[in-house]
Structures are given as C-alpha cells and as structure tokens.
C-alpha cells in the first residue's frame, strides 16, 4: 500500500505557482517589448510614429534623473495620479451606491434607466466646455470627466450583479434577523463582488485615460500635458514614454485591485481539472 504524505506540495500544479505565473507574465511583456524593438530596428514600424523601446526607455530615465522642480516628472505623475484616483474613487462610490439603490428599488431603477443610458452615450469630449464651465479649468473638471467614465461602467455592473443575487441567500439572512444594511453588507455586496471588481478593473483604466484626456484638453501639468507637448513636436519617443509610464501606473493600480479581489475570493471553489 502506498503511503501518503499530506504535507507534500507537489499537488499544487506548476501553473498555479506564483513564481511561474509571474515569470510567464514578464515573458509576455518582454516579448511584446522585444518585438516592438525588433520591428522598430528593422524599420517596419516607422520610428517617427512608433518610437522604439531603446529610445523611450532612456528618455524616461532622463525624466526621472532631472530631479524635482517645476515641471518635473514627479509632479506630473503626482497630478495625474491624484486626478485618476479621485475620479476612480468618486465614480466607483457613486456607481456602486446608485447601482445598488436601483437594483433594490425596482421602480426607481426602471424609471431612471433610459435617462442613464442616454447620458452614458454622450461623448465626454464634446462636453469639455460644459465641464470647464461647471467645474473650472483646474482639478475638478478633470476629476469630473473621470467620474463620468467610471460611474457608468461600475453602475451597470453593480446593478445587474445585485439584481441577480440568489434570493435564497437573501431570504435566509432576513429570517435570521438581518437588517437592510446587513443584507447589503453580508449578502448583496459580497455576491456582486466579482462583477464589481471586474468593472473596477476596466474602469481603473478608463480613469487613467480620462485624466490624461482631460489634461490634453486643458491643463498645465500632468502626464497628459507632457504627452500633448511631445505630440505637438511629433516627438513619438516622448509620447510613448508618457504612455508607458501611464501603463505602468495602471498596472500598479490593477495589481492592487487584484490583490483585493484575491483576498476576498479565497472562499471560492477551485477547479481541480
């Protein structure tokens, strides 16, 4: 008869080991960057438009080397991050709150549904003057733009997820004495959590994009401004330098979200096959 060592770890398949996954992820990114470089060197990607990693990486390095001071990269990053995070947080809170409200109050949800769908289709860029008018040219208007992007993504996801929660779970806790806020915090939000996080992962990206576009429209600092200036000089190296920085920041935010999701998803069954 075989003996069984319960402490053996061989049963965790390679594809679930953290180090293996990280390596693969890095390899994918490295491959992408490498392909970019090679195609750039070979002239297939016109340097005038696409730049090359070997050009924009030193440029980014240069930005950081410049140090602090007026117009420094640290300040640009700080401003863009602030706008992004404010837009993201406010948009998320609003989206979850109103999505929740409308899912719980059927009539309210139905009544406002068409209006929200209409608002969602309005191109935010076109409303730039109205944003400037209502929120001024500074931080607020940029945050507001981000909020309008994040809100709708989170709203629709939350609304649907909460509406579809298994009624038996709700019934059970209600009989067990849950107040309305208990039902929300113990059942509805946890059940909708996955869907909400999925929408947050999309909307985090849109929050960045929104902040950068708003800076593009009117600002004097931030990564969007830096990119706009570079673009004005057809300086694709500067443009991609900025884009890569944004992508890196977004990756950080996304990693944070995934960590939060992971911490909360421990209860989920894992497939063995």
């Amino acid at each position, binding site marked *: 008869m075989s003996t069984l060592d319960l402490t053996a770890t061989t049963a965790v398949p390679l594809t679930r080991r953290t180090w293996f996954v990280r390596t693969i992820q890095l390899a994918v990114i490295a491959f992408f960057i490498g392909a970019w470089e090679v195609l750039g060197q070979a002239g297939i990607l016109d340097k005038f438009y696409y730049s090359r990693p070997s050009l924009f990486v030193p440029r980014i390095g240069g930005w950081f080397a410049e140090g602090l001071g007026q117009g420094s990269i640290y300040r640009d990053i700080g401003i863009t991050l602030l706008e992004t995070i404010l837009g993201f947080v406010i948009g998320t809170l609003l989206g979850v709150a109103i999505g929740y409200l409308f899912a719980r109050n059927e009539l309210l949800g139905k009544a406002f549904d068409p209006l929200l769908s209409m608002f969602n289709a309005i191109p935010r860029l076109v409303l730039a003057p109205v944003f400037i008018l209502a929120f001024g040219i500074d931080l607020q208007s940029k945050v507001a733009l981000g909020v309008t992007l994040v809100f709708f993504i989170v709203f629709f996801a939350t609304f649907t997820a909460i509406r579809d929660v298994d009624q*038996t779970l709700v019934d059970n*806790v209600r009989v*067990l004495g849950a107040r309305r806020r208990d039902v929300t915090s113990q059942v509805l939000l946890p059940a909708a959590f996955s869907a909400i996080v999925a929408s947050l992962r999309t909307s985090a990206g849109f929050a960045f994009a929104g902040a950068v576009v708003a800076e593009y429209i009117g600002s004097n600092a931030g990564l969007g401004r830096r990119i706009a200036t570079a673009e004005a000089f057809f300086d694709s190296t500067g443009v991609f330098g900025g884009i890569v920085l944004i992508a890196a920041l977004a990756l950080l935010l996304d990693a944070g979200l995934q960590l939060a999701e992971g911490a909360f998803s421990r209860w989920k069954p894992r497939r063995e096959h």
Partner: protein
Amino acid sequence: MAPAISLRDVAKVYRPPRKRPYLAIEHVDLDIPAGRFVSVVGPSGCGKSTLLGLVSGLLPPTVGEVTLLGSRVTGVRTDVGFIFQRDALLPWRTVRENVELPLRFRGERDPARAKEWIVRVGLGPFIDNYPHELSGGMRKRAQLAQSLVRDPSVLLMDEPFSALDVQTRNLMENELLNLWGASGKTVLFITHDLEEAIALSDEIVVMTAGPGTIKARYPVALPRPRNVTEIRFAPEFVALYERAWADLRDEVARSYKRSLEAG
C-alpha cells in the same frame, strides 16, 4: 391561549410569467398551539415548502390570513428559526462565521455559543471550512446550527435531516427533542420520513397532492420523553404509520396518475 401559528383559509397561487397561474395550496386552515411539535407530510410537490414560506412571511398568501405569535404576518418574520430546503449558507463565510451571523445581526458577540452549536452538530473539526468544502449532510447541519443558535421560539424546518445518514440523523433528532423539551418551542417540521414524523411529533398533518390541502391530522399519543431509536417498535407507532402511509399512497397515486394523463 392564542395559537402560536394560525392559518385561516389560506391559498397560494404562483404566477410564473407566460404560463398559467398555478394553485399550489388552497383552503389551508391550521392552528398550532404554542409549544407543540407538528410534522407535515405529503407527496412531493404538494406545497409543504410553500406553507413554511407563508408562515415565515417570505411568501405573501394570495388568499387568507396567517398569524404568527399573535400578530398577523405581513412581511418577513425574524422571530422564527427557518431551515431552508435548499442550501442557504453564505458561500463566502466559513462555518463559524455563518453560525455567528444571526448573533451579529442582533448585535451580540458570543463566539462560545456559536462554537458550542457547531460542535453539537458534529462540525467541530470543520469550523473553518467554507460551505463548498463540506459534504451535503455537513452543509445541512451547519444550517441547523445557524438557525438554532439564536434560540428562536418558533422553528420552521424544511426536511432538515433528509441528507443525513440514519445514525447522524438520530443524533440530531435527539438533540432537537432535548432542545424542544427543555424550552417549550413551537416546531413546524417537514419531513418525508414517516417514522421520523411520528417519533418526533405531537401531531402529524397529512397534505393532499397539489393543490395541497390538509387531508388528515393525527395526534401522536406516544409518551414523552421518547427515544427515537426505540419508539418505532411501539404498537401505536405502527398503527399510526400505517394510516399515514395509506393516506399518502392514495395521494401519490392520484398525483402520479395526473402526470401520466398530462404526458
């Protein structure tokens, strides 16, 4: 004394979209005095779970009136313990957290009591497991602990023990009887096991095939305290068993014939 549970000419119609309305139960009149242990048996699909839904306030009656502990039922009642037929544990909470939940809702923190109940249903070693890491019978037992930890004065139990093996079931039945005997709780108990119904109850209610109505009510005159393992050899037990069995047989035959006709 007013009955703990009372249904007056109650009917329930389900109205599924795009299908004909379905009359699940009708003309149900039932009074259950406080402290009584009543079992409901009936053919599958006759409306037993519907009945519990009405008493707990989770379902509104289409016709008639339901009264619980002296007040009319108009919304969900939190003064009952309800064991659902379906899995109702929160999948994102461990056994411990699930059982502590009703205490937290009341603002109490009593980990010792929760733990005591978990041990009592035999889940001590699995206290930190999530529901999907339990077997079917273990999930049912966790639900039992969750409902009982609050010590409600009315228990509504929808086949709480059907997923348990005979022995574990006996253990749980005895636990339930102890709990009930000591406290004077009112219990409305749904089961498919006639022996279980007789062994536990003061009275057995037999329902007809759908639309469910009350076909017969049999008081159980067996002395208490009872030992559920031994009682099934008493002659009253056998007599009762046979009557209920015959009732049920007629109903099931009727219901099955209807299915064959529909086919």
